[in-house]
């Protein structure tokens, strides 16, 4: 599976496969506009206005292979799926060429299995267009159970971090700090309760804090440690959530909108 296949967060654009652009040298084919081999086959069948129940296998196989030949990029995972159907087409053709003792009865048509699959797939595709309409309508109606997504969201789904990731990030930062820490540590007591209140207050006010930035700003090592424990506690008790957009990027801490809710959907 590739990123293109994955349910990425797609822009709200129309998603009808773009027709291959004819060029003097032939045409440029982008297989990724097709959801898969069945999608491509259906496209070819429609383009040639072929009756799905009576597919001229030789002709359609030629078209199909033509498409594969003209593809612009190679992606082994997807290729296998396309080639599998190519092999199936050729197999069906060979079955049709084989001499038989008796005339082929209707249910013995070697094309039948493929036709059934195509018809089923066609239905699912049509259902998709109806469901998409529903989705588009629903997306405009905001409901109370909605938790706003994080800002600056990229194509990637942010990863919710484990406490270990947080700890690792913290130690990394402390190491960096200790390198330039030459001052004597001032004796200032920082209590967990006070810091916890301060943190929640800060989260309420700013909605989000940058994990590393926050610690950089802490005056002393002791204070940083206490803050860190507070964040761990907040994440553990599910009051806050720590999110990293991508590996090795900064970690951001958010107040959970559903912090008071008990019925977490896992």
């Amino acid at each position, binding site marked *: 599976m590739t990123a293109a296949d994955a*349910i990425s967060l797609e822009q709200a654009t129309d998603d009808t496969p773009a027709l291959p652009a004819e060029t003097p040298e032939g045409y440029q084919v982008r297989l990724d506009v097709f959801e898969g081999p069945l999608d491509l086959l259906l496209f070819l069948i429609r383009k040639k206005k072929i009756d799905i129940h009576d597919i001229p296998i030789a002709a359609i196989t030629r078209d199909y292979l033509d498409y594969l030949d003209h593809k612009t990029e190679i992606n082994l995972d997807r290729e296998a799926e396309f080639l599998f159907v190519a092999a199936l087409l050729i197999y069906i053709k060979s079955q049709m060429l084989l001499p038989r003792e008796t005339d082929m009865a209707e249910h013995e048509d070697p094309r039948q299995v493929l036709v059934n*699959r195509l018809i089923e797939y066609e239905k699912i595709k049509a259902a998709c267009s109806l469901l998409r309409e529903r989705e588009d309508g629903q997306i405009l*109606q905001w409901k109370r159970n909605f938790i706003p997504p994080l800002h600056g969201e990229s194509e990637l789904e942010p990863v919710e971090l484990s406490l270990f990731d947080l700890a690792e990030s913290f130690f990394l930062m402390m190491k960096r700090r200790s390198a330039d820490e030459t001052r004597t540590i001032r004796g200032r007591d920082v209590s967990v309760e006070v810091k916890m209140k301060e943190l929640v207050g800060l989260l309420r006010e700013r909605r989000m804090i940058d994990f590393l930035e926050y610690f950089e700003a802490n005056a002393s090592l002791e204070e940083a440690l206490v803050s860190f424990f507070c964040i761990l506690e907040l994440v553990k008790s599910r009051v806050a959530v720590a999110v990293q957009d991508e590996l090795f990027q900064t970690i951001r801490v958010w107040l959970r909108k559903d912090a008071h809710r008990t019925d977490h959907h896992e």
Partner: protein
Amino acid sequence: MNSPLKNIVESLIFVSQEPLTLERIQAVVEGVPAADIQAAVDELVADTAADGRGIQVVHVGGGWLFSTKPAFDREIRRLLQIERKNRLSSAGLETLAAIAYRQPVTQAEISGIRGVDSTSSLKTLLEKSLIKIVGRKKAPGSPLVYRTSDEFLLYLGLNSLDELPSEEEIAKILQEEKAADA
């Protein structure tokens, strides 16, 4: 007319974060016939659907819920600083449709219908809670069996799976597409 029952129902729906069913309302307002509650809810739906309100009571997921009216989407997104709400990718939607119509169904069956490996689509749909695992199939390898979830109904604004586009509606779409091609 403002019946106290209608006001009670409205407040119950307001605090509810998931669709509030008739049964649950009935359990709260003891001794009221279901027909009366239904009438109160119907009135509420009609009231809020009328112009002059920014929110409405909608019948979805087998119960009732408050939602904003579509016309104010832009302003809401501005408030929440959300540029756009993400739709499912076509691969995701296709996988979801295959599950919705063929459930209970295994990964191999879904991939068979689509002609494409659907493992990663399944994973994302699971993460989005639009589908759920309901068990294992008694077949070689005991593959996991998937179904759509309650969130799925909510996501598409359906009350039950019966409200999925019917065979006839699908046939109509196919007819139209073919007519457009010709």
